[in-house]
């Protein structure tokens, strides 16, 4: 897959950066004339992945490093990779189930991965306990947009 444009971003595991990551994704993706819905879908999925890295990966510690990569292919595919070096996930299949959460059940709904899957065309989760997690989100933009 050849990318026509690509950026890499490194940020700290501070919750302020959730909004920042969404803005960056919106600014990058805007180059490719997405619809308002496509842009919102992408922002929502990224928000889930970054929040997960902060809350679960780094367990609310603010000095973790989160990497985000966003790339676009000539065929209108937006590929986003969110990576943390946090605690990792023991059972990925279970983690992806709707309503499953290891977080504070008063705060977390266990719907993060379900939302990502619903709003993106593909979600790949790779994780090693003790080493970290890497979530790949793929969205195929509507070709009629003049891509």
């Amino acid at each position, binding site marked *: 897959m050849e990318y026509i444009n690509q950026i890499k971003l490194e940020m700290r595991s501070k*919750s302020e950066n959730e*909004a920042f990551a969404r803005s960056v994704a919106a600014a990058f993706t805007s180059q490719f004339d997405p619809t308002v819905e496509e842009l919102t879908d992408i922002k929502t999925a990224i928000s889930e992945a970054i*929040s997960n890295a902060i809350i679960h990966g780094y367990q609310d510690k603010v000095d973790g490093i989160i990497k985000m990569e966003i790339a676009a292919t000539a065929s209108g595919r937006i590929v986003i990779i969110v990576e943390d070096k946090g605690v990792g996930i023991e059972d990925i299949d279970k983690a992806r189930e*709707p309503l499953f959460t290891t977080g504070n059940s*008063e*705060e977390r*709904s266990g*719907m993060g991965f379900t*939302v990502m899957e619903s709003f993106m065309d593909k979600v790949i989760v790779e994780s090693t306990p003790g080493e970290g997690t890497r979530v790949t989100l793929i969205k195929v933009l509507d070709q009629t947009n003049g891509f």
Partner: protein
Amino acid sequence: MGITFEMIDDILIAVLSGELDHHSSLEIREEIDHTFDAFQANNLILSFEKVTFMDSAGVGVIMGRYNKVRSKNGKLVLSGCSEYIDRILDMAGIYTIAKGYPSTKEAIKALRREKGE
């Protein structure tokens, strides 16, 4: 994210505005609970009309408030959810614990109707 409150009878109306994510949910969660207790409210309307972005952190906020309101034997209802927010709430099964209305006015009417029964 901003929040303003209004009290009608024993109904607290919390009008959320801006972006509702994990970061902003931390603050508004406390603000809602604190105001709910201070005003001795029984019922709660969460208005989403002015919410410009929401992810699953919004679902967490609603579930937490549901438990709070239920402890007062009150009701939680939602108003002004966009099609987009609706999709997330529906996915999470939120409408089985809290009904949604197009506007706050209709939400108030519905709460009053139930009390009248």
